[in-house]
């Protein structure tokens, strides 16, 4: 969506009138398609990259795609740049896609993704062993509802997000039933409902996300992820099963369609240079998710305040 506030844009225009843009940029007028998804941070970072690229002369467009369903689009060149690919859920998908030679790993954003089973802090009193995962075995009943008793109830993510909760519950022998909503909004509707009543709940939460700035809680400490956990049954507490560990956590990478490297070399360089950190992102997400401002507005404001930073990323276009 386009910028709404005419006054702000005019101010920005005045600020940016200075630098003479490099002759070579844009190398191609073809539209660069930047992926956005069904969670806020990818939209916000996509918006930032879109604004930077447009400012230096490229045509861009934000395109909605599914987290796990994006790969054919990138391999075919329907999608060109994604600002977020999470190690937590997309590790294997990304590796597979990069191996086709049609997709590029554009390096880490600097953000650290965390996602795993999460509970509100008040649950610690009712299940004293937390955050250690073994505690879940003893207090499954605390988390139970009439339809899952005696098992606990865990609210997972939408099926398409590609988690391994089913395998993990089996491998760690956790007495829990997994419920899959079809959308993240439903997950957090349950969290809000439970939190308002201080009722038991354990669900999948990820970071950076506004939920962790609004609700107090912690992650369950599962055996720490190593690649071996997914591949070698001998690894971890259960010697006969894979997936007997928490979700991978770590980098959030940028990725791109390989064919774009020759088409828009400077744009690709800018994407590679882009860096962000968790604290900044959390603050920006609160602006968008809780204060109800548009991603465009928040991204514009940040770029204006950090003029030197993004111009350094875009030095090839200056």
């Amino acid at each position: 969506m386009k910028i709404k506030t005419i006054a702000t844009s005019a101010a920005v225009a005045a600020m940016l009138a200075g630098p003479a843009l490099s002759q070579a940029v844009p190398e191609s007028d073809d539209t660069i398609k930047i992926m956005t998804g069904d969670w806020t941070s990818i939209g916000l970072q996509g918006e930032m990259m879109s604004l930077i690229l447009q400012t230096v002369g490229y045509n861009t467009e934000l395109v909605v795609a599914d987290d796990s369903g994006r790969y054919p689009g990138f391999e075919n060149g329907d999608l060109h740049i994604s600002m977020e690919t999470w190690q937590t859920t997309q590790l294997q998908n990304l590796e597979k896609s990069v191996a086709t030679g049609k997709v590029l790993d554009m390096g880490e954003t600097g953000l650290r993704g965390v996602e795993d089973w999460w509970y509100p802090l008040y649950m610690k009193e009712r299940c004293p062993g937390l955050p250690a995962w073994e505690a879940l075995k003893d207090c499954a009943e605390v988390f139970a509802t009439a339809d899952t008793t005696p098992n606990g109830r865990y609210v997972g993510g939408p099926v398409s997000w590609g988690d391994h909760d089913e395998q993990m519950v089996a491998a760690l022998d956790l007495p829990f039933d997994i419920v899959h909503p079809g959308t993240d909004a439903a997950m957090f509707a349950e969290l809000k409902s439970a939190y308002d009543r201080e009722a038991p709940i354990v669900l999948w939460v990820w970071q950076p996300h506004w939920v962790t700035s609004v609700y107090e809680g912690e992650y369950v400490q599962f055996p720490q992820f190593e690649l071996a956990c997914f591949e070698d049954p001998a690894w971890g507490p259960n010697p006969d099963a894979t997936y007997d560990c928490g979700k991978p956590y770590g980098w959030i990478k940028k990725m791109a369609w390989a064919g774009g490297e020759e088409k828009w070399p400077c744009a690709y360089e800018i994407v590679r240079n882009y860096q962000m950190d968790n604290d900044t992102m959390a603050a920006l997400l609160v602006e968008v998710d809780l204060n109800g401002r548009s991603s465009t507005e928040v991204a514009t404001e940040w770029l204006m305040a950090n003029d030197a930073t993004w111009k350094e990323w875009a030095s090839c276009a200056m």
Partner: protein
Amino acid sequence: MRAGPLQSLRRADEIPHPAPKKAHARMASIDTVPRPKKSRPWTSPPAIALVGFTLLAWAALLGPAWMRVIPEAITFPVAQVVGDAINWFARDAKIGGVAFQEMTRGLATLFDYVIDATVVVLAEGLFTGRGLNVTQSVPPLSWLAIGGALVIMGYRFGGRNLALICAVSAGFLVFFGLWENAMVTLASVLVSVILAILLGLALGIWSYRSARIENVTRGVMNVMQTVPIFSYLVPTLLLFGYGPSAALVATVIYALPPMVHNTVLALKSVPTEITECGRMIGCKPRQLLWQVQLPAALGKLAVGMNQSIMMTLNMVIIASMIGAGGLGFDVLSALRKLDIGSGLEAGMGIVALAIILDRLSQAAAHRAAHGTHLKAGQRPLWQLLIAWLIFSTGLALLLTPLQAWPDAWVVSTASFWNAAVTWINREMFDLLEGIRNFALLQVMRPFNDFLGNAPWTLIIGAVAALGYALGGARLALYTTGLALFIVLTGYWGPAMSSVYLITISVSVAIAIGYPIGFWLSSRPRAQEPANFVLDTMQTLPTLVYLLPAVMLFRIGDVSAVIAVILYAIAPAVRYAMIGMAQVPHARLEAAEIAGCTRWQTLIWVRLPAALPTLLIGVNQTIMMAFSMLIIAALVGTKDLGQEVLIALNRSLVGEGIIAGLCVACLALIADGLLKAAAARASSDKKRTAE
């Protein structure tokens, strides 16, 4: 609101099937309708069906295991094949040396251009510069200009009442700060509606002229109405790329069937005298169509237009999931941060748009059908509108609040609604949890388990027996074939889960909706507000009440069923009202003279007389419920809807289409059986009348 002829024209609800009159017309054309025979009871179809089913039931329960659990050998995973075929078609197929995809992408560019141009005029204006350097150079039409134009049209088409409706709806959008996004939505809705109407008209005319074409289009449209939209989204995305044009194409596909059906019906209903008269005065075929038949059919065409508009607005949320912005996006993003109040407001914005479009288009069609003579001294509408646009634009340039309503003046009731939801959650959760647990553990689970564990041959046998009893061998073959498709493609499990959700939701919707409809039918005064409530229930995006349902009833089947019920109650109420209205007065008077109590009149006079319409009502309620399965999947069902949703998210073209076709099969089975039942009921009625 105006009563009388307008009321008889309007009916947005019979999605996906047109008005009951039409349903009767189609019923009559079904050749599977059994002719009442004066045969001995033992050889009547119901008796044969019962005996056959009993034998099969014995076999299924005591016979070999394959009769109970579907052997893997007879399922064919065709999804992969279909997926590959569509992928090939979308990427590599060439027609006359030009890649098919290039043609569709070219079309997409064209559509994008049209939508963009409309958005520029209505919502965003023109910009110069890009990225951080963007500035507005030309503002869009102001809210004053567009809102005023709507009011002027309302006044001209429908007098003071319609002008007031337009003013209130537009005012709501302005004061609640929804104007700009509403105009983005309006732009895409307008383009889709116009496309759907033109295409529908063309297909309808073509079908009207050739019986063979009509058979083909009727079949295709029936399937299109029942295949969930998500299942053809992936191919649409492949062909048209992500973005507004893919959303546009999907919406047009969704909104097309009622326009085609109604065009055919409307043309067929033109009295032969009129057509003959046209011929006699020497019209060429083209003149006959455009200057005689279509104008004469305008009233019925309006029904199709109205339904296309309503269905397009139903799609606003789904369209925004694949890249159309506007109000749908507002609803989604508000709900994503659990700001239910703001989601409700944006949702009501969609309702306001629906009301403006629906009432205006109906009034316009009504006027056109009854001649458009200007009163003495009246200027043509277009002159008035242009004068107004120039005047208001000038005014808006002088006074900026008239151009764009200032953010500081925006009203919001969101915090009230949010507080209300929190209050209900805190105070009433335990009670509701009790209800949920009872419904889930005592009713839904057992029923689901029963369907899940019942031998598949038994269920197919039941479908065949019902088909035979109601419509003879042909209907039995048809329904059995559809059921076997589900078995062979390997979606039996999820399909039974869908049947369970639909059966429970529809039973409750009928149990609530029919009594309300009966009650309303004898209270004309309550009907006006009731219609508004029903319109709202059908155009307010379901997600708006789905999330509060999740907060109170948790993720899972109970929330899903509640969402489906809320959506499917509206047609139940409407058909109950229509059915009751059709009961002949003479019979009611006879009942009164005979000294029947009100209860007796209802049971022995009203219900039997209304039975055919009531059965069609059940049918429509089921169709509506099926169209909600996909939305219900968002709160975590395990049925066909979820299969389609997963396929969409993972871009599995083949799986999405096959699962979608299975939904269509279920819907068509229900449709075939109930229409046959309704036909029997009305032929029984005729016999008794004779």
